[in-house]
Structures are given as C-alpha cells and as structure tokens.
C-alpha cells in the first residue's frame, strides 16, 4: 500500500494530528477528564502521556469551569492547550469562560493577547445516551463572535482540521461525533491543514442540494444512493467548518439545483440550519427562487429508549423521502429501501 491510499479511522486521525503537533510544537498540551486513562478518549489521546509525559497530557479534577479558564490563561501566556470533553454536553459547564473570556480577550485587549485553544467535544448518540449525553451545541458557539466552530466528518478532515485548529490563534470548538469514530478513510501520513471556511462537495448532483452537518453527512450520502434509484441526482455538501461558514460554495450549489435540504445533527430552532438558509436568502434577494427544508432532532430532549430514539433522529430514509417530496413527488408513492446505519446498529456503548 502506498502512503497516499493509507486508510485510518477518525479516532486515529485525531490522534495522529495531535501527536504530530505535539512533536512539532512544545507549547501544545492535552488535558481533560480521562485523556490519559486506558481507553484514551476512544483512542484519540491514547498513550500521548507516555510519549510526551504527564506534563503535556494529563487528567484533571472534575472542574470544567475552572479548567477551561486555566486553559485560557495558559493560552494567553503562550501555550496551545487542547481541552477534551467526552461529551459536548459538558461544554455547558465551560460556557461562561468560553463566551465571556476566551471569545473576548483578544478583542478587549485590542489584539495584545490571543487565545489559541482547542476545545474538543464529542457528541453522543445511541445505546440510550439520553437527554444529557447526546446534545450538539454548535449553534450556541456559532452565535458568538470570536469563537471558531468546526465539525469534521471524514478522517481526512478530522486530521487536517485538528492541525489547523491547533495552529489557529483563536479558541476553536472542535465538534466530533461518537458515531464517526470508527469511520475509515484515506489520510496522508504527513501533517497538513484543512483551512477553515471551506465547504466540501462530497458528491455532485444537479437536482437537489443536501447539506449535512457532522454525522448527518453520512446519512445524507446514504440518502443520495436511495434517491439514485428513483432518478434523483443529489449534491451532498459537508460545510466542515461552521464558523467561519463557506456560504459561497453552498450558494453556488443551490443556484444550480434550486433546492436546499439541510440536515442538522441538532435541533432546528435558531440552529445552524436556520442561519444557513437566512444567509442564502439574504445573498440571493429573490434573484432565483429556491426551495428550502430542514431536518434535525425532534424538538424534544433526547429520549433514552431505542424505539423513540429512532424517530428522534433523521435517517437516510427520512432524508431521502424529504428530498423526494421537494422534487415535487408524492411521498406516498415511494417506499425507499431500508438501509442500515451500521455505526448505529453495531454500537453497544456504553458511551
């Protein structure tokens, strides 16, 4: 196998990026609950403490609020901390430090200080994660000037975005998804950056634009295959970075297809999907008519039981049906094949 077609998992890609940056730059360090334990954050921080020592990869007390502030202070003083959270839900305990301090220190000092910090949050799903271990909070952070938000889907982007995030001089909320951790993909071995603010067209098509966020990109690609069977050619876009957002690429696609279906891995109200549609609309100012629909979590907390969880999340099938409907068809006239989401079916938790 040549280096160029080496395939690794999303978890390994994150690990490799972190390892390479820690080797390159002694100011990079990793901390957070469980980063140095036997499970190594599902492999993404595995053994970093052995290679770089306990000073540069360490467990912390359960103290998210203070530990966030400690990271911000260290970042201001010249370090490049990576604070890891096993669930994105725990970022709610970090909110004050991130929003009032990290996002504003650069501005309030008129650039005298910067906060080069990465905040990793893993979104949970399946095996009854329930209401408090399944939330995706990207829209909270997208709202705040001074914070970058990225949500890579492929192992390639996981590695490239992680390196870019570590090198970036701003706080970067790095949103991962538990259901992506075993995803395999081709990733170059040498370090590389995926620049922020560039969306990726994962699969071209002329009929409808389906934009997925995080794990929903995977479901959108499955939906594309279903739609092919009824002659619908979907274009699938992964924004990769949410703040900054590459609205130009999305706009070009929508101008081509005239239809935009956004599938978020979160709720819709005041969410990323609302923002994207508003921006497209503002840019177009009615110059071209386009249809827009959204899918996301049901507007409830996440139920624990599988029977309700299945309804709570969009699926390849529900995405395909919505796209089919947007193409002017009667949804009752098509029953898409069942496609198994293997990463969900095979996940037996517990976390």
């Amino acid at each position: 196998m040549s280096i160029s077609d080496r395939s690794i998992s999303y978890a390994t890609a994150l690990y490799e990026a972190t390892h390479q940056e820690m080797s390159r730059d002694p100011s990079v360090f990793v901390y957070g609950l469980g980063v140095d334990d036997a499970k190594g954050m599902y492999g993404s921080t595995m053994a970093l403490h052995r290679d770089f020592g306990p000073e540069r990869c360490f467990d912390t007390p359960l103290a998210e609020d203070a530990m966030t502030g400690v990271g911000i202070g260290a970042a201001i003083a010249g370090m490049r901390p990576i604070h890891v959270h096993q669930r994105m839900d725990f970022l709610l305990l970090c909110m004050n430090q991130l929003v009032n301090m990290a996002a504003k220190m650069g501005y309030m000092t008129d650039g005298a200080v910067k906060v080069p910090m990465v905040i990793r949050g893993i979104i949970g799903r399946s095996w009854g994660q329930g209401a408090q271990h399944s939330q995706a909070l990207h829209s909270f952070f997208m709202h705040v000037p001074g914070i970058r938000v990225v949500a890579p889907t492929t192992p390639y982007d996981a590695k490239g975005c992680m390196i870019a995030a570590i090198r970036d001089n701003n706080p970067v909320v790095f949103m991962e998804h538990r259901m992506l951790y075993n995803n395999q993909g081709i990733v170059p071995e040498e370090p590389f950056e995926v620049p922020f603010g560039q969306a990726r067209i994962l699969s071209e098509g002329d009929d409808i634009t389906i934009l997925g966020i995080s794990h929903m990109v995977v479901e959108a690609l499955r939906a594309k295959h279903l739609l092919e069977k009824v002659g619908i050619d979907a274009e699938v876009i992964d924004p990769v970075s949410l703040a900054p957002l590459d609205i130009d690429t999305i706009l070009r696609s929508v101008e081509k297809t005239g239809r935009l279906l956004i599938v978020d891995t979160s709720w819709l109200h005041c969410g990323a999907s609302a923002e994207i549609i508003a921006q497209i609309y503002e840019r177009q100012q009615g110059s071209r008519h386009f249809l827009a629909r959204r899918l996301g979590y049901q507007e409830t907390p996440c139920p624990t039981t599988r029977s309700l969880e299945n309804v709570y999340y969009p699926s390849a099938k529900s995405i395909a049906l919505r796209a089919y409907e947007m193409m002017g068809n009667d949804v009752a006239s098509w029953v898409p094949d069942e496609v198994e989401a293997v990463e969900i079916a095979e996940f037996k938790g517990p976390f």
Partner: protein
Amino acid sequence: MVNPDNVADVAALYERIYLIRRVEEEIIRIYPTDKVKSPVHLSIGQESVSVGVCSNLRSQDIVYATYRGHAAYLAKGGNLNKMFAELYGKVGGFASGKAGSMHLGDIDAGMIGTSAIVSTSIPLAVGNALAMRMQGRDVVTVVFFGEGATDEGVYHESLNFASLKKLPILFVCENNFYAIYSHVRDRMPDANICERANAYRIPAKKIEGGDIFAICNAARDSLAAINAGEGPQFLECMTYRWRDHVGPGEDRHIEYRPDSELDRWIKDDQVARLAGMLDAATRDKIESSTNSRIAAAETAAEESPFPDPEIMYTNVYQ
C-alpha cells in the same frame, strides 16, 4: 440505634440490601440480550450506603441521587416494576422509557431525579431543603453523590449556601476512591473531604469500610441534628464499586486499580455479612420473596409495550 443483635433490625436491612444486589445481578444477566439498551452504572459493592442512610428516612423525605442511582432508588422504596420497565425502555417505566437507568426519578418514591452530569443535582437538593423550610414542612432532604462530584465548583457553592442558610439537608458522599479510572489522589492534594465540609461549618463524619450498621447509626444522628435545627450535616461513607464504572462487566483487565484492593472490599461484603447474621429460615424467606418480586418485575417489563412515537412529545413543556 440499629442493633446488630436485634434480628428484626438485621432482617429489615437484609431485605433491602438483598433486593438491590439481586436486581443488579439480574441486570448483569439480562444485559447480553440487549434488552437494556442503555448505559448502566451499577452500585454493586456500594449498597450499604443507600440502605444504611435510607433506612432512617420517612416516606415524606426527599432524595436526590446520581446516574449510579439504582441502589438509592430501591433503598428509598422505589417501585421495582416501574424501574425494570424503565430500563427496558417500555411504557410501564416511570418515564415511559424516556429516562432510562441514568435518570431514575419517581416522585411517588420521594426520589425526585438523578442527573448524568456530575454534581448537578446537589444544588437542586439544596433548593428542595430551602423550599421545605420556607413552606414549614417536616421534610429532610438527602443528596447522594460520589467523591468526584466534590471536585466541582457547584458542589462548594452549594455547601456554602446550605450552611449559610442552615438548611435541613444531609449530604452523603459515597467515596469509592475513583471517578471512572481516576483515583481521588490524582484529583485532590489531600482527600480531606470531611475537613472541607467543616470549612463551611458543616459537621461531617467519615465512616470506614462500608459498615452498614455504622452508616445507619451515623445517619440517624445526622438526621436528629437536622431535625433539631442544627443545619446541614455531612457523611462521607467509604465504599467500593466492584464492577466497571459503567456497564455490567468487571474491570480487572483495565488495571487501573490493584486486584488486592478490590478483593479486600469483596471480602467485607455487607450483603454477605447481614446474610450470615440471620438464621436460614429467615434468610430463605426474604430471598425467595425478593426473587419472586424481581421475576414478576422482569415479566411485567417484557410484556409492557415500547412507547408510541407520540409519547416522545409529551411533557417537553408542562
């Protein structure tokens, strides 16, 4: 005082602790069938804390606990059928499967709720105590949490406020030494949890070895002090989790704690200790009736249907 020489006292404690142990053993047995599709945090090894404390509570008293909440729920007199159905994700559960193992809560049993975000129910318990005082109600609030929860800022803020207002609340720290795989010594310069409570002027007592009688009696004294208007009280109960942090399995292979430490605690098992204090006939009677209750709860959970999708949308707002 609970008297180890009094057969009735011992039998009452055994009935509760045996139920909890057996329920969790059943969860371990059932788990490979994937009927409980949810993370479970077992209390096996730690039951004496919940049983010892709750044996002193009245039905009107209120308990808050954590995601490791099976023991507290059952010790407080929770409904076994509803608990099993909830674990199975069925409509027969107290939240129709919307809560699951991590969020046991049942107002009828006086256990309001449990949170999977560490330390977050502690201030709610303090709020409950505040409300009880404002309403002039004769209710004591008890909050269970792990030693890991005492790392959090909100814990300290809650203790400070409870003490400031002299609220009728009992803080119960179940110190099992580990937060997931992280030892308390790696999180605190000195695990002086009682001293820290004392710094907020809250009387605190440490009970070694998971000793169920010592826990019972200490809780009784603490509750008496609370009822006498002396304000919050604190118990640090040393205990040990036998199984993995989450899931039904053992965790010796992870090698984060010495086998000898675990073996020592298993040797001091409080369930076996109580069993050994009872005559065979008393013990058999308790065990067989408990096992039939559990079997019935499993059957009821099996037979209960999964919730219809409409149930998902209920109670988002009240």
